[in-house]
């Protein structure tokens, strides 16, 4: 028991040494640090047979690998025949267990159908968001000569064997463009929009599966038009608004994830260029939290909307109660 605290103390010294090295590099050796430019679209790294491979696509490839590795790891742990999963697969089991009871709470008997969507989306987005934490992502990349008329904002500088980029200090020197090899996939609107479209289409699919064609009475509600003249018209208007709200679901799903993670990675770079030593660590903690929350919220909202679609709309129940 006396061994364990010693290891923790050792870790503390590593952090202190890293801070000191940082202070030496930035304030004594005066290695220039940069504030990278903000580029909204993903950049092309290379292309295969005319198909552009962007840096976010490379990140998505790694995310898929990690999620697959998680899945096979848990599968192997289950196949090993132990009653109680230990270590990492045990943590995954606890997570899935918690999420399943949460899905059962919102979706009821549809939990089994909706649950895979919840966990797939959540794990994918969670791993994608947390990739932001890995050093080297978004900071290691190609240096390309800037084409005329595009944003070339940096000049190159030699730091030991590596070529770094920096803001031009003087007018001389050729301007270059920086393209990271790997960029967090959630900062690409195509990724978030794709998941959002899948989710919103699946909401309609579950609605139709549970209620049949009656699901469309939510959007085109003429049932009460003639029995209750004034409220019937209002119900019809509400139905039309529901159509608008389906489209705004796509927008808010896509932009919530994109906006949060994009703003987060810009924040990390800005803090890193303002206070290059240690201050970024605090914001890494914040981003860790934001990444987890956003992944959870994406999955939870998908579950909630799907569950709502299966439950039918409130008006019919009222009618039954009155009749």
């Amino acid at each position: 028991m006396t061994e364990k605290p010693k290891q923790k103390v050792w870790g503390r010294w590593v952090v202190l040494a890293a801070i000191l090295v940082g202070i030496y590099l930035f304030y004594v050796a005066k290695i220039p640090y940069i504030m990278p430019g903000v580029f909204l679209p993903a950049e092309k790294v290379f292309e295969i047979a005319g198909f552009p491979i962007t840096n976010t696509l490379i990140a998505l490839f790694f995310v898929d690998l990690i999620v697959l590795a998680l899945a096979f790891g848990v599968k192997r742990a289950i196949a090993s025949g132990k009653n109680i999963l230990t270590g990492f697969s045990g943590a995954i089991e606890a997570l899935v267990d918690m999420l399943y009871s949460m899905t059962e709470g919102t979706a009821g008997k549809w939990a089994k159908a909706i649950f895979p969507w919840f966990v797939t989306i959540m794990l994918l987005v969670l791993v994608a968001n947390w990739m932001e934490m890995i050093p080297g992502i978004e900071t290691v990349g190609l240096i390309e000569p800037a084409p005329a008329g595009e944003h070339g904002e940096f000049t190159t500088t030699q730091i030991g064997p590596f070529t770094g980029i920096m803001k031009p200090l003087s007018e001389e020197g050729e301007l270059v463009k920086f393209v990271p090899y790997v960029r967090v996939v959630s900062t690409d609107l195509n990724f978030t929009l794709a998941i959002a479209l899948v989710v919103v289409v699946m909401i309609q699919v579950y609605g139709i599966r549970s209620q049949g064609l009656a699901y469309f009475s939510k959007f085109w509600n003429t049932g009460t038009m003639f029995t209750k003249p004034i409220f019937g018209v209002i119900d019809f208007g509400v139905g039309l608004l529901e159509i608008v709200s389906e489209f705004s679901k796509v927008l808010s799903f896509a932009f919530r994830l994109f906006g949060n993670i994009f703003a987060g990675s810009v924040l990390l770079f800005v803090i890193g260029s303002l206070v290059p030593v240690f201050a970024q660590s605090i914001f890494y903690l914040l981003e860790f939290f934001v990444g987890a929350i956003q992944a959870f919220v994406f999955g939870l909202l998908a579950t909630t909307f799907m569950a709502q679609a299966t439950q039918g709309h409130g008006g019919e129940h009222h009618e039954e109660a009155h009749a």
Partner: protein
Amino acid sequence: MDIAAAYILGKLIGAGLAMIGAIGAGAGIGIVASGAVQAMGRNPDATGTVQTNMILGIAFAEAVAIYCLVVALLILFAIPMPA
């Protein structure tokens, strides 16, 4: 003032103004969290349900701020420089 300077100036001011909308979302998230914490304090057994619904409420309030961010990003990056 030449047109390039006016373009940059307008773009930056516009993006800044667009983000004012985030005030509403901030206040909204504060109200949601305050209500949820009160509820949890009064009824600690319901913490799980309250927490889930709080996160949902925060997500909806935040969506408004995200729309502001989108408008600001569009103003910053999507408006081409006039020739």
